């Protein structure tokens, strides 16, 4: 499995060169856990027949169409001022304008449920993980944006751009109605400039706070002036430019931007022209590509970026990013195909985010949801998962603030920030709950079915093979032979020492599945096995 002492020292050098080493389940599972939510056996089997290069190509080129939008899964009582009555249950609301606060609240909740469903049912590509990456990067809070249409449209923009051009996306985000609300762009005018977006555009979205990111307080003010005049049309659900609100003076930037001046424009096209200048100016610095590549590295690889990683990974990745005019795919391709990405040194070193934990567990253990037609039940079940990750401090759609989740930027702990005395017990409580009780909504239950999972494995009747298979998919750090022997004996063999004990009850289950007493025995053994494996700290790592 992933990281043992001997493997660690077997490879002394790793950089962006294409990885040419062994391509086994170990490498595939590592790749899938990092680029998708969990490594599902079916996906591992699928890629086993392909080369690394073809695998990465498939992951970076999703064939699935963009998903249908969220629907109305709720009913509202008559106290709502503008009830959502024009939208039938099961129809989407995303193009329907409604200013009522209660309606928008229910729509935003429905949006989050829908998003969770997309992650649970993700296609075999990096799109879902990149969408979440972009949400963390261009962080907005749906509670602040308030208008559910804006929330959805903002999200749809991230999703459709997940493997597209980062510079284009940055411009589109700048004019996105949701972002214009979130960072006050819509109230940024020549007479009352608001620096909020102009600051975050540089500090959080493009240049970062590294030592070489030398934009100034004056640059913040100048960028704010460039961005004056944009506002939202809530009837059309789009942003538009008002020339009379625009600052037409010349904007002078600092030496970090080569003392660039952006000429003040007038008229209807002024806003667009000046934003293009602003984007060209910001993306002409070396720092944007470096900053974004560091963010990508911390998302897919590990948080520690020392001088060696900076020189041998970040700098060349940033060169690729610039050379390809800020297309995301070439960067991801270079990173995911690299020796460094498959270096055992970085395998298993990520602490799962709450979404990795919750969605990954549902996918890896084939937790069954309802058919698409029963969206009411599914939305309710997905809602449980939304609340679960939120309690573990990853509220999708509502990160803590505009800088996103701390685990991806706060030194020195980074991923470790996910884990504290409040959140860690909640993780264990959740995996236990889905193994033992299960969660029920609308009479439909989600529960880990250990027998069904075991049946997908190579030789579930042999307790040694069974345990090895389970650990292969759930862990990145292999257990010692003595620990495996202990788990096998204590759980699968119920304290006895002959493997035949388990083989016998498994075989009896296969030949007589209706033998309730025996099937219960098998089911409980597998439940306890999976529960225990997910209780150990190793399960928190990918």
């Amino acid at each position: 499995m992933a990281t043992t002492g001997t493997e660690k020292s077997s490879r002394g050098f790793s950089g962006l060169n294409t990885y040419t080493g062994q391509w086994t389940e170990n490498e595939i599972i590592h790749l899938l856990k990092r680029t998708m939510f969990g490594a599902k056996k079916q996906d591992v089997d699928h890629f086993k027949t392909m080369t690394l290069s073809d695998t990465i190509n498939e992951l970076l080129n999703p064939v699935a169409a963009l998903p249908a939008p969220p629907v109305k899964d709720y009913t509202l009582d008559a106290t709502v001022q503008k009830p959502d009555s024009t939208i039938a249950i099961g129809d989407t609301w995303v193009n329907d304008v409604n200013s009522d606060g209660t309606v928008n609240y229910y729509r935003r909740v429905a949006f989050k449920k829908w998003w969770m469903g997309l992650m649970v049912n993700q296609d075999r590509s990096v799109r879902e993980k990149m969408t979440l990456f972009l949400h963390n990067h261009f962080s907005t809070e749906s509670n602040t944006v308030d208008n559910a249409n804006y929330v959805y449209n903002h999200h749809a923009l991230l999703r459709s751009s997940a493997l597209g051009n980062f510079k284009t996306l940055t411009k589109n985000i700048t004019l996105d109605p949701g972002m214009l609300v979130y960072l006050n762009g819509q109230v940024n005018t020549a007479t009352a400039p608001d620096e909020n977006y102009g600051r975050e555009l540089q500090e959080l979205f493009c240049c970062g706070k590294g030592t070489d990111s030398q934009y100034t307080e004056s640059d913040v003010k100048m960028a704010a002036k460039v961005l004056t005049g944009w506002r939202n049309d809530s009837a059309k659900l789009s942003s538009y430019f008002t020339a009379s609100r625009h600052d037409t003076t010349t904007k002078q930037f600092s030496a970090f931007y080569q003392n660039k001046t952006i000429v003040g424009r007038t008229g209807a096209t002024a806003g667009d022209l000046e934003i293009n200048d602003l984007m060209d100016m910001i993306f002409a610095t070396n720092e944007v590509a470096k900053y974004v590549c560091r963010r990508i590295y911390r998302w897919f690889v590990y948080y520690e970026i020392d001088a060696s990683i900076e020189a041998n990974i970040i700098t060349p990745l940033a060169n690729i990013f610039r050379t390809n005019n800020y297309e995301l795919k070439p960067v991801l391709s270079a990173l995911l195909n690299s020796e460094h990405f498959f270096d055992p040194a970085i395998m298993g070193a990520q602490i799962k985010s709450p979404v990795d934990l919750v969605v990954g567990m549902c996918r890896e253990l084939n937790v069954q949801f309802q058919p698409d037609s029963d969206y009411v039940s599914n939305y309710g079940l997905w809602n449980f998962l939304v609340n679960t990750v939120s309690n573990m401090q990853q509220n999708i759609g509502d990160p803590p603030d505009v800088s996103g989740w701390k685990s991806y930027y706060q030194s020195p702990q980074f991923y470790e920030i996910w884990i504290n005395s409040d959140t860690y017990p909640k993780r264990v409580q959740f995996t236990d709950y889905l193994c033992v009780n299960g969660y029920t909504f609308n009479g439909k239950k989600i529960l880990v079915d250990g027998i069904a999972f075991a049946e997908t494995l190579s030789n579930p009747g042999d307790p040694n093979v069974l345990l090895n298979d389970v650990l292969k998919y759930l862990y990145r750090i292999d257990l010692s032979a003595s620990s495996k022997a202990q788990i096998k004996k204590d759980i699968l063999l119920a304290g006895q020492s002959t493997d035949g004990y388990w083989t016998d009850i498994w075989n009896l289950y296969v030949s007589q599945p209706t033998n309730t007493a025996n099937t219960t025995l098998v089911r409980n053994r597998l439940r306890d096995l999976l529960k225990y494996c997910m209780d150990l700290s190793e399960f928190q790592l990918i």
Partner: protein
Amino acid sequence: MKRRDFLKNTLPVGIMLPSIVNGMSIKAFGSTSPLLASLLMPTTETDHVLVLVQLTGGNDGVNTVIPLEFYSNYVNARTNIAIEESKVLTLTGTQKVGLHPSMTGMQTMYNEGKLKLINSVGYPQPSFSHFRATDIWMTAADSNQQLDSGWTGRYLNYEYPNFPNGYPNSTMTDPLSIQIGSVTSLALQGPAVSMGMSITNPNSFYNLINGLQDPAPNTYAGKELTFLRSMSQQTQQYATVVKAAAANVTQQAPYPAKNNLADQLKIVARLIKGGLKTRIYMVSYGGFDTHFNQADTTDTSIGNHANLLKNVSEAIKAFQDDLKFLSIEDRVIGMTFSEFGRRVKSNASGGTDHGAAAPMFVFGKNILPGVLGDTPNIPAKVTDNDNVPFQYDFRSVYASILTHWLCVKEADLQQVLLKNFQLLPIVNSATCKVVNPNQSGSLLISNYPNPFTNSTTVQFTTAGGHTLVQIMDVLGRVIKVLVDIDYPAAGNYRVPFETANLVAGVYYARFQNLTVQQVHTMVKVN
């Protein structure tokens, strides 16, 4: 590239010493090195508790403490959100400033001598970024300095070295600091690990399994695995004492309903009364980023900012009343802070943009009452960019509380704040008990030269009897026993130490004589 050095992952992260040796900065692992734990001075004796109240988003200080002294300029600067003079809450003994009309609770506290107001707290070259400014307040860094540890984390590391190894123990049975909520603040981050425990409900903890534990591999994965296991063990151990403390308290004074800050402070009071020895508690309350519509357009004394201040004021007042009810009022002080204040001039959207200095409140029975500092001067003609300049460095407030309330010796302050800061009259320093005289007070071991290259001379003062001098590396390995002798009499001795074969870095000379132990840090350079 060359494989990264895994050795460093087995070591705690070092604290950067302020001193620069031969132009290179040295990382010292002294405070986190396991062997040093037993050798450091005894933990300061105090039963004092500090409660940090974080107001996130950047509270508008100018509308919190209204500068009555410059009232007409204030109105001029804030035409759309200025508070009517007649509605400003007056403070006994001063006409220079008053409180926002919604802060009646804190007005009462002030007039009863339980609230200290410090004007214009900030720092040079203020950051207007929420994130950077928050980091600065949490870490006590300079504006242009990045620190990875929090100021209270460093304080706790000073008092309880080597945490979490060897904890809980007989000296400290309880969590070092507690944050109410599910996230743990950077302020509680120690040099290597977080010193904070996060709690949302002190009555309920889910059991964690500390089952089979194979040795962690020597990789980044192993590093994170070790962290997870340690967090699991700590949580289990501390959950028991926290639950027990909570169960000890069955009655508290009333708190306002639907007030998230009050809910948090109620838990804090309960745990203090319940018997935890925890010294630092942190609570936080958000929503202060009032870029627009911060006040009602027809009545500026109500609205968004007023509601925020009302909740803060009512929560703190209820907490203070509860401390009295629980008879622990003598032991607790609290402090409010926010990452920055806001601009002097309000903006056209009826709000205020990111600014600089702002007032701080320190509350409790043992604070020195009154207003500290001059009223911030509001110019007659304000521009969009005018800020309240800082009068007091926020680290002076920290230094004063550390010294006068948590009883840190002035000589040791620099270990926590990394620089010297002026002490201010904020807390009654008489409440610090006399610290145990410490045997390590006089210097018993030293070396010269230090730093050294090929050799150095170790000098020590023995009282006679068995005397041991060991040299250790940062991993705690004894690499040399310099002295292991029974001296017939007291005296000063010098022993040469050849160091040509040592790699550059930090070493410790550990001195042991009868019951006295001392450790001295030495630095080898090339």
